């Protein structure tokens, strides 16, 4: 077992004990689920929406190189600087170059999981630049110096009391139990930073190929401010986020809001087609768009795993996942948590390192049914397991399954095996649940089921005669 896997087990065990935190998560996701179901009901045909969205994404990914070319041509024609980043460190290098060129000191950021993926903040801070997260949830977790807990709800693991203490500690604010007052503390604190920032940074939810536009979805308006006030704007986007046409947005935007945030639409869905135009009064003078690959084009070439690139990062698979609810976001120790993370992390960042995530799933398929673009996540986890078991399974496990196949396939072995197991179980209570119990992984927390002397096959034979 590697260190990541060990830590996963340890943290999962801690979460099992932490009933209070699990309740915070359950309450948050409970509120979400109620709202989401109402918003889904507003659609005339939600299943058809899912099917259509899935087809458009699939079509788009099949033609990914052409779509990217169209996107970049259009964006370039309006004066946007396009950068291709093959890896995460390329992104950091590109952003550092822009900051140095602009003699920037402060960069204000809106939410971007892709920037988490490439560990951008760390790289910039190491070089002496100040980076401020402006999304309220991200602002909170940045003050706590921890990664977001969830793809969409970064601070969902914290209560208002903890946030009040945090603000009191770090911002010298008066303690308060009022979420509105807490929000206003963050608003006040960030206002001057938007104005002082040399560079505004955003993530993106879609890139529209045929008009050459970047689409950013948000609720707070912080991303709009990042894209309005600083003189230089940077957007980081994974290459898989390209959609073919402007007319696809009226489908994707309400779907993303519905499953991502339990809203009909989020407050701001903004399209950026380039830097400030000469006749416009404001906006950034320079606009840089960084297109990140980081393993995505490798997945695009695999017809099975291409499906996972349909993901819009809405978080709805996390929200329905009983594993996520049990272990929480930080236990995954991965940029992308929950079912999408368990599929993606091993494929993008190393099968060996993240293999435990592919097995940490009861295959309940709730994620697949919740996914707005119909990614068969549970099946992709099975595919991960197939690859992993042929490459990394311990010898004893392979041997055990070979033995089981033989046992199941020979009626004599099977019937003898049942009798022997019955005899063995008579002695089991002596050690049941203890450290020397070979079935300890079951019996430490559960009673073992009782084997019977007369199996169904025995009863059936008797009944027939």
């Amino acid at each position, binding site marked *: 077992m590697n260190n990541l896997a060990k830590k996963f087990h340890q943290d999962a065990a801690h979460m099992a004990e932490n009933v209070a935190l699990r309740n915070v998560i359950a309450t948050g996701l409970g509120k979400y689920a109620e709202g989401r179901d109402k918003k889904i009901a507003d659609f005339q045909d939600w299943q058809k929406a899912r099917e259509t969205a899935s087809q458009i994404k699939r079509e788009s990914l099949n033609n990914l190189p052409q779509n990217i070319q169209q996107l970049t041509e259009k964006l370039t024609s309006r004066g946007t600087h396009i950068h291709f980043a093959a890896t995460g460190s390329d992104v950091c290098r590109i952003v550092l170059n822009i900051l140095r060129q602009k003699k920037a000191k402060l960069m204000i950021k809106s939410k971007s999981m892709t920037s988490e993926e490439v560990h951008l903040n760390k790289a910039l801070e190491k070089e002496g630049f100040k980076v401020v997260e402006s999304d309220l949830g991200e602002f909170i977790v940045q003050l706590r110096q921890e990664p977001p807990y969830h793809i969409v709800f970064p601070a969902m693991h914290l209560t208002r009391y903890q946030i009040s203490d945090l603000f009191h500690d770090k911002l010298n604010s008066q303690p308060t139990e009022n979420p509105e007052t807490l929000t206003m503390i963050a608003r006040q604190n960030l206002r001057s930073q938007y104005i002082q920032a040399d560079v505004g940074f955003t993530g993106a939810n879609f890139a529209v190929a045929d008009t050459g536009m970047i689409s950013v979805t948000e609720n707070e308006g912080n991303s709009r401010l990042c894209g309005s006030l600083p003189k230089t704007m940077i957007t980081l986007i994974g290459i898989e986020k390209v959609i073919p046409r402007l007319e696809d947005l009226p489908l994707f935007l309400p779907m993303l809001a519905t499953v991502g945030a339990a809203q009909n639409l989020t407050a701001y869905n903004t399209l950026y087609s380039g830097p400030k135009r000469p006749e416009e009064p404001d906006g950034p003078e320079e606009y840089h768009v960084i297109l990140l690959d980081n393993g995505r084009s490798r997945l695009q070439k695999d017809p099975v795993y291409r499906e996972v690139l349909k993901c819009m990062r809405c978080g709805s698979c996390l929200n329905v996942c009983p594993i996520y609810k049990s272990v929480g976001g930080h236990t995954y120790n991965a940029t992308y948590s929950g079912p999408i993370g368990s599929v993606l992390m091993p494929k993008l960042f190393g099968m060996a390192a993240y293999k435990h995530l592919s097995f940490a799933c009861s295959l309940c398929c709730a994620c697949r*049914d919740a996914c707005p673009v119909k990614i068969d996540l549970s099946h992709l986890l099975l595919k991960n397991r197939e690859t992993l*078991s042929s490459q990394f399974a311990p010898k004893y496990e392979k041997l055990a399954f*070979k033995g*089981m196949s033989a046992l*199941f396939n020979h009626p004599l072995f099977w019937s003898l095996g049942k009798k022997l197991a019955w005899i063995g179980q008579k002695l089991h209570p002596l050690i049941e649940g203890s450290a020397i119990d070979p079935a300890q992984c*079951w019996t430490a927390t*559960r009673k073992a089921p009782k084997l019977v002397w007369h199996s169904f096959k025995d009863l059936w034979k008797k009944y027939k005669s």
Partner: protein
Amino acid sequence: MRITLFAPCFIDALYPGIAMKAVKIFENLGHQVNVPEELACCGQPAFNTGHWDEARAVASKVIESLWDAEAVVLPSGSCTAMIRKFYPELFAESPLSEKACRLAEHTWEFSDFLVSHLKVTDLGAVFNATVTFHDGCHGLRELGIYQQPRELMSHVKGLTLVEMEAIQCCGFGGTFSAKFPEISTTMGDSKINMALETGAEYIVSNDSSCLMHIRGLADKQHRHIKTIHLIEILASNE
């Protein structure tokens, strides 16, 4: 009708009474039952753990034995899903492909077979208790079985069904329960809490593997809730 009852490994070794009751239910309805004595397992444990070759070794025997049966019925949603959904994929490019697809077409989960295929909903059962129902995930999401067991229970005299707050996995998940006992147990606890909140005396399910997990947890922690397979209720005339 000639019904092939395939009682999977854990029902054979742990809960033979459930399969015997299924036999009696079908015979009382005037059908002929046969049991493939040479088969023990559908191959799902190996398949779900990623050992697909070992799964194929077990599954190919099932296919050869049952592909030309009239109807194959299993008292387990999970094993049924294995045959119906995953055999065709597992044998997609093999000589057994056609037989695997044939088998998938005439394989049924018990409650689904009664309601959707035989169109039987009232078995004249009597069961005086308040119960809650746990949907096994594979039956629910791979096979779309939701209404069928509820339909059958609605005709059981004396039975009151109270639903849990949410539909959620019990945390069994086959080898997952042994590889990640800390998570599996947390999920099972949450399931038991939800069931207890309904005030029901029993958790009923059409999947024995889920019940085995829930039972094991409840016994270890001395939590007072009984577990029972749907078939036992349908065969009851207390």
